[in-house]
């Protein structure tokens, strides 16, 4: 197609330009001064995440208070102030901290074990096809089962008390974390996986050093969900499984006060759960996010 080429040349000739050429001297990089555009006072405040969150919390508390007052039914839904009062009373007389501590111990144990189990299952799933099928099958079978379904087995295997609670917690934590981790692992870019193998990494080293950091956002989401469901399950399970009196956790605290119709105390118990949730999210999970995901620039 010499013809086409000739035409192209023609085009380009037409564009001849009378703009002057420009040349600049080199500036030294050190001499640069930059004039930044100013932000308004509101914008500066709005940029602070903790401030925005505080405002949200304050608004929610206000809504609660107003709704509680209009409802005016302390036996069903106490006001925010009544709850706060009960909360501080519980805090002062030590019952709430004791209950939270007692629940917290069990929770952390179940959560920790759940993570370990999820890690094992996911590692197996990454290692072989049958492992994948096993994880998928187990998850789709057991994840929908409520904790009460495990009661008989738990009683046989672990008897009453904390061991059974931990068992139930593991059940509620494992599947969610395993699902998220596995899907995160599968989503790791093909190239990164090849890079890892190229270094000669294999098995656990490959998972630890490549897959886990690469799938970290997914894993963290799984951990968050697992954490939340652990709380839910624990509080419900403390009722189903029974507690020997005197050793009850937050679930028991709530149940007992509900039975005695001391509703502000019930809500104080729930508030404790909420506060722990907020603290864990904003101190622990957010810090992890800042140190990892944000620094690595893997979420935008």
């Amino acid at each position: 197609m010499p013809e086409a080429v000739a035409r192209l040349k023609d085009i380009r000739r037409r564009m001849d330009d009378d703009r002057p050429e420009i040349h600049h001297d080199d500036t030294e990089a050190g001499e640069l001064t930059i004039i930044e555009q100013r932000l308004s006072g509101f914008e500066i405040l709005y940029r602070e995440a903790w401030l925005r969150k505080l405002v949200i919390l304050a608004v929610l508390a206000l809504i609660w208070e107003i709704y509680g007052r209009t409802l005016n039914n302390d036996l069903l839904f106490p006001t925010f102030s009544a709850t706060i009062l009960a909360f501080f009373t519980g805090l002062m007389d030590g019952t709430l901290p004791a209950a939270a501590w007692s629940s917290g111990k069990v929770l952390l144990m179940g959560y920790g074990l759940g993570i370990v189990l999820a890690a094992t299952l996911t590692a197996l799933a990454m290692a072989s096809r049958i492992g994948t099928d096993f994880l998928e099958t187990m998850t789709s079978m057991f994840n929908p089962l409520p904790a009460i379904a495990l009661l008989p087995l738990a009683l046989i295997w672990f008897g009453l008390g904390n061991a059974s609670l931990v068992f139930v917690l593991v059940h509620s934590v494992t599947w969610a974390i395993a699902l998220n981790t596995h899907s995160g692992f599968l989503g790791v870019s093909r190239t990164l996986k090849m890079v890892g193998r190229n270094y000669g990494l294999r098995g656990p080293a490959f998972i630890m050093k490549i897959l886990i950091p690469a799938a970290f956002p997914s894993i963290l989401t799984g951990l968050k969900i697992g954490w939340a469901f652990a709380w839910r399950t624990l509080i419900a399970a403390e009722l189903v499984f029974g507690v020997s009196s005197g050793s009850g956790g937050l679930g028991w605290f709530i149940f007992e006060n509900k039975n005695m119709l001391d509703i502000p105390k019930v809500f104080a118990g729930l508030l404790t759960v909420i506060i722990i949730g907020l603290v864990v999210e904003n101190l622990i999970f957010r810090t992890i996010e800042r140190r990892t995901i944000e620094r690595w620039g893997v979420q935008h």
Partner: protein
Amino acid sequence: EVATVRLAKQFGIGYLPLTLIEEQGLLEKHAQEAGLELRTEWLRFTGGSGMNEALLSGNLDIAAGGVGPMLTIWARTQNNLQVKGIAALESMPLYLVTTDPEVQSLADFNRSHKIALPAVKTSIQAITLQMAAEKYLGEGRHDALDAFTVSMGHPDAQLAMMGGRSEINAHFGAPPFQNQELKDERAHKVLDSYEVLGGPHTFNVIWAKNEFVENNPTVMAALMAALEESIGFIRDNPDKAARIWAEVEATNLSHDEVVDLITDERVNWTTAPQGILPYVEYMSRVGLISASTDDWRDVFFDMVHDTEGS
């Protein structure tokens, strides 16, 4: 007055009068006789707290359950909603059953025992156990057994104790679970609530908010009439009553077993509240409720005030 009345039931033979009212349409019948077109709506609950919430949120008119929850809500609502009992359903003994042959009295319980009951500290069984501890082990020792108690639903508790693989080796239950347990030769009775209370006492009651009772005198009258009729029916035709109950309630009991439960001489089908005051007195003394009274009539609306209550 309301066109539809919403009533609650729970599981167990103790709610037999209500079952009969529902199945035979007694409430509708008596309301019609009083010139009121009334519909009923029956709801099932598995525990007292869900039911109380339904009552307080206006989703339920008449609740049914044990004496304990009723006293709790009565004490709590003295200054506002004024919830009170309407009537008792029956007096019935509760047994503490164990599979440990070593245990013959309360004093024999030690750390190796676990006593299952519906809710530690707050259920009627837990309170009765405390009263028993005070009575048999001595003043100030009312909470001596609390450390051995464990919360567990009746079926789970029975399974755990009779299954024999868990630490549960005693169960403070209710009919029909306690009766079934006692049929097994491994189990025997340690405690009888009638002995603790010094006589028969009410097991189940029905209760409502003051507002509902005041606004619906005809319905309440019809309800009382229906209750009387159904209790009369139970007394006169235990066989038929058992048949009706077995038909509508999920049960694995044989007909004869049900009849035995109904006609047990220690069971008294009556609307008269019995043994309420000891409970009120004990619960307020240990601080489980903040109100007290020395007249059982304060705890009930006036429909049963002229019965032989205590």
